């Protein structure tokens, strides 16, 4: 197994609030290897976005981040701002859910793309301009030359997302962090964007960390899947293992409550609600909603451990919940 490109160890992220600290990420371990597509799935409050934002130091000053995040061996937590800036848009690209807030509405697409290039590569403006067209080609933007002169608000959601991807790819990064990249898009546009990502990935051996709540997206694009709940990873493994041979009750609960295109079988809701992150129970965070809960679940923190085909954070695994 090659050296991991990105490694998160025991990551904790806390947000102080007047009513107590919110422990949004509670001891996360995660690795991404070169060329690997890692899916991070979870519902709201699971901590999936928060954890990846820590990689590039994108939290506000109020956040308390501890643990270790290394990229190619270099520690990022506590790294000087200049180093993080160098990485952002350089070796690590990032795309977000809403391109409208990430793109500067006052600058043309061409201008923003060129800037992304110039900031990191110090070339001539002309070279940057040409590179901009190449980038738009890379993301299959129709009429790339014309698009250079467009402003973000003149483009559709799908086109804006392509621009975002182009900007993130401007400096040939090793890793792309995609935070809900298709959530705000129509399904046919989503298919186009996922297609673009898949193509870029194989052309450039790009590693992608994709954060999403959509298990269908992950099923289509990911090599490994991390399922998060209440600030922790509760199950992890190769994509087929997680979908067909999972061990954690939350994973099975999640899959069982999804309506599917190819069948009309009954939905089995999980019941209850995710716990408040400022008032977590002792032991497993899923205990209040779990069908298989025992006293062991309430006594102590549960760590991820290999069980069967996947790693899962459940004291009672194997439960053989991976029924397909």
């Amino acid at each position: 197994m090659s050296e991991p490109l990105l490694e998160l160890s025991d990551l904790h992220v806390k947000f102080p609030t007047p009513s107590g600290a919110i422990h949004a990420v509670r001891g996360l371990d995660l690795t991404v290897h070169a060329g690997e597509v890692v899916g991070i799935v979870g519902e709201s409050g699971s901590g999936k976005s928060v954890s990846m934002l820590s990689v590039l130091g994108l939290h506000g000053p109020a956040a308390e981040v501890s643990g270790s995040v290394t990229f190619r061996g270099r520690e990022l937590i506590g790294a000087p701002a200049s180093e993080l800036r160098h990485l952002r848009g350089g070796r690590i690209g990032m795309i977000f859910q809403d391109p409208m807030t990430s793109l500067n509405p006052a600058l043309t697409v061409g201008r923003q793309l060129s800037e992304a290039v110039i900031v990191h590569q110090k070339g001539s403006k002309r070279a940057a301009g040409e590179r901009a067209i190449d980038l738009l080609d890379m993301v299959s933007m129709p009429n790339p030359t014309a698009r250079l002169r467009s402003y973000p608000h003149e483009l559709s959601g799908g086109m804006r997302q392509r621009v975002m991807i182009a900007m993130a790819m401007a400096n040939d990064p090793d890793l792309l962090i995609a935070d809900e990249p298709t959530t705000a898009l129509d399904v046919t546009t989503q298919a186009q964007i996922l297609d673009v990502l898949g193509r870029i990935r194989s052309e450039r051996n790009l590693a992608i960390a994709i954060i999403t709540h959509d298990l269908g997206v992950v099923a289509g694009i990911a090599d490994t899947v991390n399922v998060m709940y209440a600030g922790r990873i509760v199950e992890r493994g190769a994509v087929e293992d997680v979908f067909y041979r999972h061990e954690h009750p939350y994973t099975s609960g999640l899959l069982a409550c999804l309506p599917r295109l190819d069948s009309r079988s009954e939905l089995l809701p999980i019941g209850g609600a995710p716990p408040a992150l400022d008032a977590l129970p002792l032991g497993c965070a899923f205990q209040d909603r779990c069908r298989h809960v025992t006293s062991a679940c309430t006594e102590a923190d549960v760590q991820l451990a290999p069980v069967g085909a996947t790693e899962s954070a459940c004291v009672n695994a194997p439960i053989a919940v991976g029924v397909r």
Partner: protein
Amino acid sequence: MTAALEVVTVSLAPTRHPFARALRRPQFAIGMAVLAFWILVIVTVSWWAPYGPLEETGARLQSPNGSHWLGTDTLGRDVLTRTLYGARYSLPTAAAVIGLTVLIGSLLGALAGFRGGWIDTVIMRSSDVVLAFPPILLAMAVAAALGPGLRNTVLALIVVWWPIYARLLRGQVISIRHREHIEAAVSVGVPKRRILRRHILPLATTPVLINATMDFGQVVLLTASLSFLGLGAVPPTPEWGVLIDEGSRNFYQWWIALAPGVAILSVVLAFNFLGDSLRDLFDPRGR
């Protein structure tokens, strides 16, 4: 970053009383303190003021001393007393103006926003005409036409001020009208009048409240300005503008104008603070 807001908490705990929370903020506390002070003065001054407001003590143009803490004016009247009594004229006048303006302006604005059509056009064009004038000029013109006296001042200021609230409310009504809970009310079968009353207007009150609070200081200033120009309160009424007018004619007796000036300043500042803190308080994050 929206990351911190990812948390889904079902908090059914009762929220702490907003007034208590508000008092923690220095701006609000100062504003309330000054307001409380002046209200106290208005109500109680006649019991403890050292002299009467019209009492001529024969000690003319005295600079501040032991028996007249803020000195006396050309007729020997105690400046401190007159300034304190002045609150009884300046503040209630402003309150009347604001109260009536908000009422009239809001009614017209709500009507314009809800009904649209020619009603809207008539009301909006009228407000445009009024707003085209510099407020003090228009107020002067109306006050001059009506004659002196505080009652006419109130009328003049209402004429000048109502369009602001008409516009404010119209804008509010129009924006609220398109919200989903209004569509829901329509689909439920709620009659139009009730929609306006229960679903639109209650949500429009917050900006009005904030605006009215901040306007209060402006109205006090405008009232004083009219009196200063001889178009508002009539001497010997110790309205602050009148006092400043007297002070301006005795420029070297700086204490005569200073006291009412500071009084006006304190009121304007207090209401600005209050308005600002109200605005912060009612921000969506306070939900």
